[in-house]
């Protein structure tokens, strides 16, 4: 150890030890579980642990090739997982990657900076905010994994270029291969931003470095006579380096291609044609300040203070090639803040995540930041500070910088604890058990609201999901044509997101999607009204939603095969590259022993008599003696090295002769960098007196305190304006910060806090329970010194629709602060203190005897009989819809699926879709429901949708792509018996059709809840009939507020004023499950209300059902 400490920089060992302790502790504490990517890599590792050589992963999407992502880091985890499990395997690999990068930055820094600065660079890296963010916030294991190998390769590249020893070349290539195994992009861009500066540096140094046998003259002027010798002289200097660079380059490219050859073949055969997924690193950081914080400010952290020094130092020393690279990385890392990165990168701009450039920038600047520390310790900065501000300031600056640097590191490392990017950790065992139980894995599942933890669930089951967390591998048009990263978080992806999810929910049979595990109530209304029902709440609080009548997955799923050699390569080459790189990298430790064994090295320090080694060696090589002798003879005969040396000597001699400068053409050498002389002439400030130093320190402290105070005052002033108070009030309500919201109410008129909470607790409904505040607009309509009237317009988004609301608020001044007057509360009292109502319960036992065998024939329930009363194909507002009405004629409740097909004149299917929201999926016996099948295309396929990503439009519609004219249609209705979500507790009362002031017809009335449970989201279906009593159009409306038992809710619904909806086709195939009609379609029905003749429809039927959110 002492030997090692003596040979290497102690700061390096300190950095490695701290990295081990600091990042090891953080990783063991589970920081990675809150990151974005960690579980994805663990899932990939799980694949390799299960089936190492199988390139096909069926569990995500509809299957994808594992050759779509370099496997080095993931296979390393998989290998370790056999001994320690996946999670611990990840921790170990991540920790080793951090240590590798720490070592790498030290070695990298030594190329550009002093030994001391390199040690500090290693130490700085351990606590760098970019490291903390990459490892503990983003969980980008492959980035760190590959960066370590890349950084460690660079000194070998430099030594190869400078010394030309093949050993360094091979080591560099192997480390490049390991880099590629971890992450090919690092090798690709690393060649430009890391390797190229090293090559440039070596060439420039060689350019300036006279050769020993070189003529010593330095001509004062360049003339025609000495021009050629001067050029040849430089060429002769750089030629060896250039040739070595030319040898190294193809090897680097080969390492990039061969190690992950199946990846390149895959990307060529199956190019990523999907719509690019928005990434905030491509935003303007001025507009999207959050993105600027995460992708720019945090990675740089405190090193931003050193940027002027870094560029000054970098451009004035031998580090200038790396500094130019740094400048380019800094520039590209600014994302969409300026248009130039997009102009420079072209199409790649929309594919790359640009934060990686910032990350690499923070890495490349560390050597120079190390120089900054050296300068602050005992260099120019230290002298300046001590002379001008005194020792106290100098020491205070040390303390302040170290303290701030560490605080930022701790803060960023634990950022996911302060600011949750992921949902709370979920216990996946109940879900895995559920999927295993009763062969539930025979259907696909979907998770909602799991965040990146969905990958960890996938790693614990063999069941398949339609979703996934690796968007490059998506192949379903419904997903590749949208910029939706995951269905799982569809609500964050605007129109295409929810549109994409809606398609899976509306037509789940197409994807064999039967189960949804929901951890986000936001989606509950959408799921319910799409025909899904809650099956059970698992022990971990996750709600299981189920869709009936979904066919199971076929026994054999399609997969895309690749040749056997590619599978073998994928399973062996990347890991072998890593192992070989590590062996080569560790050669200083084992090579002396090998050389000693081979009798090649006398400097190993091991003093063993030569004859003993000779005996050992002879014994070991005896079986190969003949072969060895033959090889030696062949090598000697070929004389490759000798011939090469002779050719090179001949060329070198020619160059040497050509570089002869005429005698006497000599003058002293003059540096050409004139600005260095200018800088040296700048006057140095005189040292300040102790009194002046104290005064300056006091001034600095005063300025700091004054800045803090003025900042605080400004913040408070901004936070107390009436507009801000109202906005914050709504924000508090949105985020359920009720105590803060209560504090903004008028203390003189607000109810007690308990009463306030009670009043809030009884406000339910789509907006109150499932809405997310999207926008608050405040307008002052009246104001005096003590009272302000405000018109507040809010936009709420839900998974079903958006809700604009308008409210008048009054703010009053109390003790120089504005407060909001409380809303009036509902004081009505229901008539009955205790209410009873008979209800019917149903239970389908499925298998009366609990066995794990197929359901007995006698236990299979009949499908309820459905009769389609009428249906027609209409074109309304530019979209095709099939509207109609069906009745459940059986005596059992039914879970209904209605599917409509559009046909061309030849009878071929043009499009197919299911009735989604405009239907009551769960029907009582003898109940009638209208239905409307809205044919949709692939969400997001229309350019206008993708352009509007920032706007959430739940009701957005993408028309289907119809290549031929529509000629006819078919409607199929099928059902299974259900026991779920059967309640009809809402009474429609005092219905009235009237003409509003704007001339539109409205339906006004009340919803009365006569049931025992809150109707959280009432859903009103409006069926318009023609004169023959046939359905002409169907519309629907969600009522915003919940209706509690025995209470009423006023509704005012604008009616469809479009008159006769054009009928495209009324003759069609209507296929219910009833073989013969049970009822006459012409039967009179009192539930239809006559409509005014000017509306174009003959009558209207209003039906209502509701989502009861609190029932489970």
């Amino acid at each position: 150890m002492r030997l090692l400490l003596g040979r290497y920089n102690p700061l390096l060992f300190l950095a490695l030890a701290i990295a081990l302790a600091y990042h090891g502790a953080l990783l063991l504490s589970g920081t990675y579980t809150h990151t974005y990517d960690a579980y994805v890599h663990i899932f990939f590792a799980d694949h390799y642990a299960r089936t190492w050589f199988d390139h096909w992963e069926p569990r995500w999407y509809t299957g994808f090739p594992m050759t779509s992502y370099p496997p080095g880091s993931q296979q390393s985890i998989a290998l370790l997982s056999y001994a320690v499990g996946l999670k611990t395997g990840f921790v170990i690999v991540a920790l080793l990657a951090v240590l590798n990068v720490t070592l790498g930055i030290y070695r990298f820094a030594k190329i550009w900076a002093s030994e001391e600065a390199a040690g500090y660079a290693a130490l700085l890296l351990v606590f760098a905010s970019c490291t903390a963010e990459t490892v503990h916030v983003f969980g980008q294991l492959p980035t760190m994994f590959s960066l370590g190998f890349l950084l460690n390769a660079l000194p070998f590249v430099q030594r190869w270029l400078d010394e030309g020893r093949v050993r360094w070349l091979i080591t560099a290539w192997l480390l490049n291969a390991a880099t590629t195994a971890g992450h090919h992009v690092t090798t690709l861009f690393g060649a430009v931003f890391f390797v190229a500066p090293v090559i440039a540096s070596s060439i420039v140094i060689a350019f300036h470095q006279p050769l020993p046998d070189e003529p010593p003259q330095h001509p004062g002027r360049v003339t025609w006579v000495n021009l050629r010798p001067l050029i040849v002289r430089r060429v002769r200097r750089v030629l060896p380096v250039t040739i070595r660079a030319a040898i190294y380059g193809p090897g680097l490219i080969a390492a990039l291609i061969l190690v992950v050859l199946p990846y390149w073949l895959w990307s060529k055969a199956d190019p990523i044609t999907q719509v690019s997924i928005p990434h905030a690193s491509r935003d303007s950081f001025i507009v999207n300040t959050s993105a600027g914080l995460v992708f720019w400010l945090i990675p740089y952290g405190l090193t931003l203070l050193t940027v002027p020094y870094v560029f000054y130092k970098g451009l004035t020393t031998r580090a200038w090639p790396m500094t130019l690279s740094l400048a380019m990385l800094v520039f590209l890392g600014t994302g969409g803040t300026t248009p130039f990165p997009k102009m420079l990168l072209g199409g790649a701009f929309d594919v790359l995540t640009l934060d990686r450039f910032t990350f690499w920038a923070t890495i490349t600047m560390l050597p120079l930041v190390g120089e900054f520390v050296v300068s602050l310790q005992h260099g120019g900065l230290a002298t300046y500070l001590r002379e001008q501000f005194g020792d106290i300031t100098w020491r205070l600056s040390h303390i302040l910088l170290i303290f701030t640097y560490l605080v930022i590191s701790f803060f960023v490392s634990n950022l996911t604890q302060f600011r949750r990017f992921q949902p709370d950790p979920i216990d996946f065992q109940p879900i895995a058990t559920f999927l295993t139980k009763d062969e539930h894995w025979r259907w696909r599942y979907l998770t909602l609201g799991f965040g990146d933890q969905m990958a960890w669930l996938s790693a614990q089951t063999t069941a398949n999901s339609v979703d996934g967390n690796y968007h490059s591998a998506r192949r379903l048009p419904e997903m590749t044509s949208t910029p939706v990263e995951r269905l799982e978080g569809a609500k964050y992806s605007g129109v295409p997101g929810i549109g994409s999810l809606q398609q899976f929910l509306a037509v789940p049979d197409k994807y064999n999607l039967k189960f949804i595990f929901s951890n986000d109530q936001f989606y509950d209304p959408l799921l319910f009204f799409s025909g899904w029902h809650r099956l059970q709440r698992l022990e971990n609080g996750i709600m299981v939603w189920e869709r009936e009548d979904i066919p199971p997955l076929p026994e054999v799923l399609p997969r895309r095969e690749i040749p056997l050699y590619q599978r073998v390569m994928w399973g062996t080459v990347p890991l072998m590259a890593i192992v070989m790189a590590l062996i080569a990298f560790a050669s200083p430790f084992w090579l002396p022993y090998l050389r000693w064994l081979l009798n090649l090295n006398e400097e190993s320090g091991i003093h063993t008599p030569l004859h003993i080694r000779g005996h050992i060696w002879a014994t070991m090589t005896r079986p190969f003696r003949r072969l060895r002798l033959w090889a030696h003879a062949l090598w000697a005969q070929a004389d490759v090295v000798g011939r090469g040396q002779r050719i090179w000597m001949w060329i070198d001699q020619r160059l040497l002769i050509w570089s002869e400068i005429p005698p006497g053409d000599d003058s002293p050498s003059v540096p050409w960098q004139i600005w260095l002389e200018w800088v040296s002439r700048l006057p140095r400030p005189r040292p300040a007196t102790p009194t002046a130093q104290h005064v300056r320190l006091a001034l600095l402290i005063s300025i700091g305190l004054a800045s803090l105070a003025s900042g605080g005052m400004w913040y408070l002033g901004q936070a107390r304006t009436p507009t801000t108070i109202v906005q914050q009030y709504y924000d508090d309500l949105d985020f359920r910060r009720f105590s803060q919201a209560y504090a903004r109410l008028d203390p003189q008129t607000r109810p007690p806090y308990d009463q306030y909470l009670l009043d809030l607790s009884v406000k339910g409904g789509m907006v109150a329970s499932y809405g997310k505040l999207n926008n608050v607009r405040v307008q002052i309509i009246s104001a005096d010194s003590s009272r302000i009237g405000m018109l507040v317009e809010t936009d709420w988004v839900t998974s079903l629709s958006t809700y604009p609301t308008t409210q008048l608020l009054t703010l009053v001044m109390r003790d120089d602060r504005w407060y909001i007057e409380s809303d009036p509360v509902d004081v009505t009292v229901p008539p009955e203190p205790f209410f009873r109502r008979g209800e019917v319960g149903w239970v389908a036992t499925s298998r009366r005897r609990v066995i794990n065998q197929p359901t007995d024939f006698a236990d299979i329930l009949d499908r309820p009989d459905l009769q389609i009363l009428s249906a027609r194909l209409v074109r309304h507002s530019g979209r095709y819809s099939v509207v109609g009405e069906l009745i459940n004629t059986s005596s059992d409740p039914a879970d209904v699926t209605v599917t409509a097909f559009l046909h061309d004149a030849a009878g071929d299917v043009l499009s197919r879709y299911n009735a989604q929201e405009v239907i009551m999926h769960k029907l009582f016996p003898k109940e009638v429901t209208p239905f409307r099948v809205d044919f949709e295309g692939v969400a997001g396929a229309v350019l206008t949708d993708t352009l509007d990503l920032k706007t959430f439009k739940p009701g957005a519609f993408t028309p289907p792509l119809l290549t031929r004219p529509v000629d006819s249609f078919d409607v199929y209705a099928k059902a299974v018996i259900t026991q779920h979500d059967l309640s009809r507790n809402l009474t429609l009362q005092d219905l009235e059709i009237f003409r509003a002031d704007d001339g539109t017809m409205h339906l006004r009335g009340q919803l009365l809840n006569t049931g025992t449970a809150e109707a959280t989201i009432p859903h009103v279906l409006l069926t318009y009939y023609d004169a023959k009593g046939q359905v002409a159009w169907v519309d629907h409306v969600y009522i915003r507020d919940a209706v509690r038992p025995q209470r009423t809710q006023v509704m005012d619904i604008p009616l469809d004023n479009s008159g006769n909806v054009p009928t495209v086709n009324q003759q069609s195939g209507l296929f219910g499950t009833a073989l013969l009609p049970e009822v006459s379609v012409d039967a009179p029905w009192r539930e239809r209300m006559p409509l005014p003749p000017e509306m174009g429809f003959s009558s209207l039927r209003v039906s209502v059902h509701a989502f009861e959110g609190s029932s489970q």
Partner: protein
Amino acid sequence: MTGCTRTLAQPTPTLSGTLNLRAPAAIAAGQPVTLVVERSDAPDGMIVTLVMEGSYGPLLSRAPFQAGRAEFQIPATDTQVAGLVTLVAHAAAAEGRAELTINPGQPVDPVTPLVGPHSVIADGAHWGSVVAIPFDSFGNPVAEGTPLQFRIRRPDGSPETFSASVTHLLAWRRISSSTHAGRTTISVTAGDAHGPDANLIETPGWPGPFSLNASPSNLPADGRQFVTLRTDPITDVYGNQMLDGTLITFVAETPGGQPRLIPAYTIDGVAEAQLQAPSEPGTVTVRATLYGVESTALLIVFAPGLAVGAFPVTVSIDHATGTMSIVVGPLLAALGQFVPNGTLAQITLIGPDGTTYQREAETLGGLARLTLRRSELVSGNYQIKIDIGTGVGQTNFSVP
């Protein structure tokens, strides 16, 4: 070591033509059988290969010729699968063929009846089917023509019995529904073999007309209390009560001509729903409907409710806060009690220039309160009028 030794070419015995394969024409399943292959000129020791090609694949046996005869003892385990077995014997180039029929045995337990659909409408027109596939002890479908006895107990307890013979492996019979809803139980026997029962659920058909009743029938029109609407037991034309959960909709028409739709579902054939009293006195007409069926009309009279008579109105102005309070009440209903909390009072203000302002105030504890900002009103005399139910209050005040 023998593998390393070169084998000497042995002369292959030759035999061609036909072998005489003797086998019984038929045996019972699970019975051992002896098969004999004969050829007088066959050399002793020549191996005869016998292939039995049956329903579940081939069985292979070998035996040597001995004095022109090779005998195969086929054990009972190889004759359990019923059906036609083709026997093919080979010896060198000679071949013999025969056929053996393995007959299934007698039916054994269980003889399982299968009914589909599981439910039909009990109207005498709808029907289901019962199917049975009896098997012998080795799992073979029994022989064609095997008689089966079907026994049926109808929902009303009446038994029925009929026979059917096995044809094409199964016996089946169409079972028409009765006109009595309930469970029809079906069992089947084949000889001494029995099995579990199967059920055919006979459900009520489409309902016929029915009537309604309501209680209480003397509620005031207070817009608050509930009247329970109830149907008589709803039955189909054969008197079968609707099953629980059948959806019925009560359609009520209020005195103002505004319809109400009240869903309900049957329990024990009766659907029950709550009708909230209207705010306006008068007669409400109620009918219950189900697609294509309607009950008789029921008329319910609601007496005047909410506030009755005249009630006081007080107006006070607070100059310090610049507000004006209007307090209405006590608001009393027909029995002298407070009107329900939350009842809306319609307040009409008529300003000095004839301008009308409409406001609403909810009642709490028999009082309705309204606060107005003084700055919202111009100076002058105002008239204020309050309407709640059939009650009225009014007063005048002036704004300085």
